[in-house]
Structure formats: C-alpha cells, structure tokens
C-alpha cells in the first residue's frame, strides 16, 4: 500500500485525539465481547439443544414432578426412540457460592439420550456398580479438584442431610459449548434415600426417531397424559432451554439495547472526529487532488484512516475481553460456559469494521466531493 505512510502519519498527527478515538472503540468492543459472552452463557442450553430431543415436564410448573411410571408409557408411543429422566437435587458443596447442578439420573438411558457426553467405559462401569457413585463434568472436577476415588459430601438443601458420593467418573463434552459442569448420580439412590415424593422424577428427556416429526410426538405425549392428575408439557429441548432463559429476564433485548446505545454514541463521537480531521485538512486534500489524486483515492484515504482507528481499537477491546473470559466464569458457577467464541470474535471484528466505515463514510464523501478551487481559496 503506497499510501500507507500518508494514512499512518495522518493518524499520528493528533496523538491525544487518536488515543481517545482508539480507546472509544476498545471500550465499546470490550463491552460488545462481554455482552456476547454473557449472552452465549445464558443461551448455552438453547445453542446445544439436540434437534431430536424433547423435554417433558409437569404442565403446572417445572418444579412439580412427574410419575416415574410415565417412562414405559412414553416408550409405547410411535416416534419415540429413547426416554430418560432426571431429578433436580439442588445440593451444595461446602458453601452457597459453590454452585453446580446435580441430577439424579436414569443411568440405563442417560448416555443414549445425551450422546455428546463422553465417559470412559471403565469409569462408567464402575459408576454403574457403585450405588453411591457419581460422575462429574470435567469443568466442575477441575474447579474443585475432584479426582476419581474422592469422596464428595453434598449438602442436600431439598432432601435434608449431607449425602456423600464417590467420584467414579469424569465426563467430557464433544463440543466447546457442551455443559461440562454437571454432577450425575443414581436416580435409584435418590429414590431409595428420599423421605418423600417417592415414585416421582423431575422431568423426562425424549429422543425422537425423526426430528421433523418432533412436534407431533410432543403433542402425542401431552395428549397421552391429558386429564390425568399429572398432566405434561412437552417442548423441543431448545424451546425448553429458551423458556429457562426467559425466566432470567429478557437478556437478549437488554444486550441489544445497551449495545445499540453504546455503538450509536461511538458512531457520533468517531464520526465527528473524522469530520473534524477532514475539515482541518481541507487544504491538504485539495493539494492532493491538485497533484492528481483521484476523487476515489481521496475517499479511500479518509475511509482507511477511519477504519484504521476502528481496527486498532477493536482488536485491543476484543483481545482484552478474550483475556478476561479466559479467567473463567466471574460469577462462580452461574454461567458455566463463560467464553468468547471465535464466531463472536469474528462478529466483533465485523462490527468494528462496519462502525469504522460508518463513521468515516460521510467525511470521506465530503473529502471526495471537495472542489479544489474553493478549497484552495480557503487556505
């Protein structure tokens, strides 16, 4: 790029202003990255949801249970391939701050419904053979230093007492988005020790034979249990997960509003900076044109400068937020998937470029349209 020196020197001519402009982009893109990370974390359930999975819960509320006997009846319905269930244990490890979800699962079917979770076969066999065994997600195991063979006491806030489990296995996910913070133990063990609510489970997860027919299967399930004392509500897993997200407030809208306000403000500030730069350099731009620089070249010189500020600031902001997220979940467990994906980084860079172009396009256009004779007369 022959004109690089000129563009670069122009950027460097007002150090304070350039620093502030780049800083504005950096702050805005840091915020963008942070919001995108939070949104990813909240939406993880929606994003990783299997297209062929349905979730059946009690029609009245998610916290109301369903009879364990529904499993066999569901399996009789056409289109149903696999049924598993789980119950929420709601325990804590040592301290309120140490949150990770514990599920009492149907060990016979669980991994067939969640093929994305991997457990070494030897560990899984050990778990099946151990009534008090548990399998822990890699992230939670790493966070609390749980190792195979450890004995982990969980304070059962719902069922009472302290329950001790043996760590028999560590599971991993296929993809980065897979939730590797869960703690699984035998549904049968819960059934055995619980004082109340026997014969009930939290929810069912169903795998359907044909994802395209998922909606018919979900209707068939709900029809099957209509007018019983435990009516059901069946949704696709992603609908279930996004319903879960909605309970946390409309985070997406909030993020969109904050993001829009920040970016609009940035656009006004940087657009004004570029307009000032062009106004100050009216004479110089006219001289370039006099020498024979084409209008299109002059347009690009201004636009490139605007993009230059944006790229520098955007890269700084996104790099900073990436470093920040590498430290992991700042809430101590509420957002297990706190990471900035490559896709969101790319989106951030695209937003940066769009902002740089938007801020520069009007000043660049004015520079292009600048009439030499009039501009020189003003010098």
């Amino acid at each position, binding site marked *: 790029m*022959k004109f690089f020196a*000129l563009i670069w*020197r122009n950027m460097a001519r007002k150090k304070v202003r350039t620093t502030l402009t780049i800083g504005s982009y950096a702050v805005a893109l840091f915020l963008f990255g942070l919001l995108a990370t939070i949104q990813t974390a909240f939406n993880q359930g929606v994003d990783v949801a299997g297209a062929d999975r349905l979730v059946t819960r009690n029609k009245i509320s998610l916290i109301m249970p369903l009879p364990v006997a529904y499993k066999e009846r569901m399996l009789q319905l056409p289109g149903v391939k696999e049924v598993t269930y789980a119950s929420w244990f709601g325990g804590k490890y040592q301290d309120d701050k140490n949150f990770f979800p514990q599920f009492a699962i149907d060990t016979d079917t669980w991994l067939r419904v969640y093929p994305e979770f991997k457990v070494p076969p030897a560990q899984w066999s050990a778990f099946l053979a151990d009534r008090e065994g548990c399998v822990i997600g890699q992230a939670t195991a790493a966070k609390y230093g749980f190792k195979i063979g450890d004995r982990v006491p969980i304070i059962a806030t719902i069922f009472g007492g302290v329950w001790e489990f043996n760590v028999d296995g560590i599971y991993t996910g296929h993809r980065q988005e897979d939730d590797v913070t869960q703690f699984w133990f035998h549904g049968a063990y819960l059934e055995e020790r619980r004082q109340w609510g026997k014969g009930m489970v939290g929810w069912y997860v169903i795998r359907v034979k044909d994802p395209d027919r998922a909606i018919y299967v979900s209707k068939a399930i709900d029809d099957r249990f209509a007018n019983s004392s435990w009516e059901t509500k069946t949704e696709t897993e992603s609908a279930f997960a996004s319903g879960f997200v909605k309970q946390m407030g409309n985070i997406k809208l909030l993020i969109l509003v904050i993001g829009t306000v920040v970016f609009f403000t940035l656009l006004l500030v940087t657009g004004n900076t570029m307009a000032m730069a062009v106004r100050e350099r009216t004479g*110089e731009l006219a001289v370039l*044109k006099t*020498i024979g620089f084409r*209008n299109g070249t002059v347009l690009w010189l201004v636009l490139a400068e605007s993009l230059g500020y944006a790229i520098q600031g955007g890269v700084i902001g996104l790099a900073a937020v990436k470093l920040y997220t590498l430290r992991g979940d700042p809430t101590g467990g509420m957002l297990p998937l706190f990471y900035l994906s490559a896709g969101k980084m790319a989106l951030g860079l695209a937003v940066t470029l769009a902002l740089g172009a938007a801020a520069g396009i009007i000043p660049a256009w004015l520079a292009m349209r600048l009439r030499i*004779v009039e501009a020189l007369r003003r*010098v």
Partner: protein
Amino acid sequence: MVRIDGNGGGTSLIRVRNLDKAYVRGGQAVHVLRGLNLDVEEGEFVAFMGPSGSGKTTLLNLLGGLDLPSSGSITVAGDEITALSAAKLTAWRARHVGFIFQMYNLMPVLTAFQNVELPLLLTRLSKAERRAHAEAALELVGLKDRIGHYPRELSGGQEQRVAIARAIVADPTFLLCDEPTGDLDRASADEVMDLLHRLCADYGKTILLVTHDPRAAERARTLLHLEKGALVEAVKKHEA
C-alpha cells in the same frame, strides 16, 4: 513565442481561445475573464501581473485543469482539456502540470522526501525508482541534505523549494506558479526565482507565473498584464 491575439500557429504548446469565466454570486454573474486568447510555445517563461481580483488565479486554475471555463477552449499539447471528463482531467493534471503555490502547501505530516515522492505514488514507478527521482529533484533544488526534515523544520524559502521539487519530480509538461514568492523575504524570493529561471533556461521547462512583485516578473521572458478580463502585452524584453 507568446501571442495574445488568438492567431498563434500550430506550434503552440498551450493554446487558449475565447476564454470566458463568470462566477455567479448572489444571483449575479461576475465576469472575470472575457474572451481571453493566449498562445505559449514550449520552453517559454511567462509572467502575469494585474491588480488584485483581476482574475490571475482564475486563469491559472483554468490552465491547470482545476476549474472549467464558462465558455472557450484550452488546448495543451494537442489535448483539449476543456473537453475532458473530470476523471480524465485528473489523470491529465497528474501527467502534465506542476503546481507551485504561494503558501507552499506541503503535507505537514510528511518529510521533504515524502512530499516530493507524493506525485510519483500515482505513477507505476517502483519504490527504488521513486526514491531516485525524488532525491534527484531535491538535489536540483539544493535540499538533498534536508531529505528527512519536516516542513516545520524548514525555512519558508526551503519549503518553497521542496514544493518546486514536488512540482517537477514527475517531469510535467509545464509549471504553474501562483505568487510563489509572495510570502518570502527578498533573499529567499531571489533564490526561488533563480531556480525557476534555471528550470526554464537549463531544462527547457515551460513556466507560467503569477506575481505581484515586479522584480520577480522581470525574470520572465514575457510579461503580460491581465486587465478587464483579457491579456495585454507589457514590456516585451526579447523575442524567443
């Protein structure tokens, strides 16, 4: 040879015919140039004088293809520039015209070398060729040792010499100078005029110069006055 009667032959480098320029200001047309004729052969050194507001800058802008006339034509080396499209005119300027202004108009953020190199960025020359050309131009104006200096580190006279180097570096067909000594002290002005004189005498450059300074005008081979929108002959020193 320079003629203002509109009867120049086919040998003129620059041929201006019936040039009219009017500005419309507040709904009223101000006629600045009226039926101006001019023929300039290659290698001439012409000075234009005239009262302020008589249209000297307007004429230079038209000759340099920076502005378009209301009517009339300008032909330079066979190209009728008044008939070129805006884009072609820009390319023509880059190829044929070197401009020198009263206020030097150097890029403050670029060094003397980078300023002189600017017009070459529009050519196909390689980096090494650009370097060689720019250095030769700076050498010619006697500023080889100031290659890395920024305009603010140079005196007015030196700045104007850098501007002259920039104007000649791409070897243009002719130079247009609008009061190049207007902002300089006597000594610097003399240096600049010596330089322009040398460019004409030694390198055969065609130069058109606007000035208020009779001493500067004296250095030209032909002196013309702009009066009431047309040119009139003044002291003609000697025929070319």
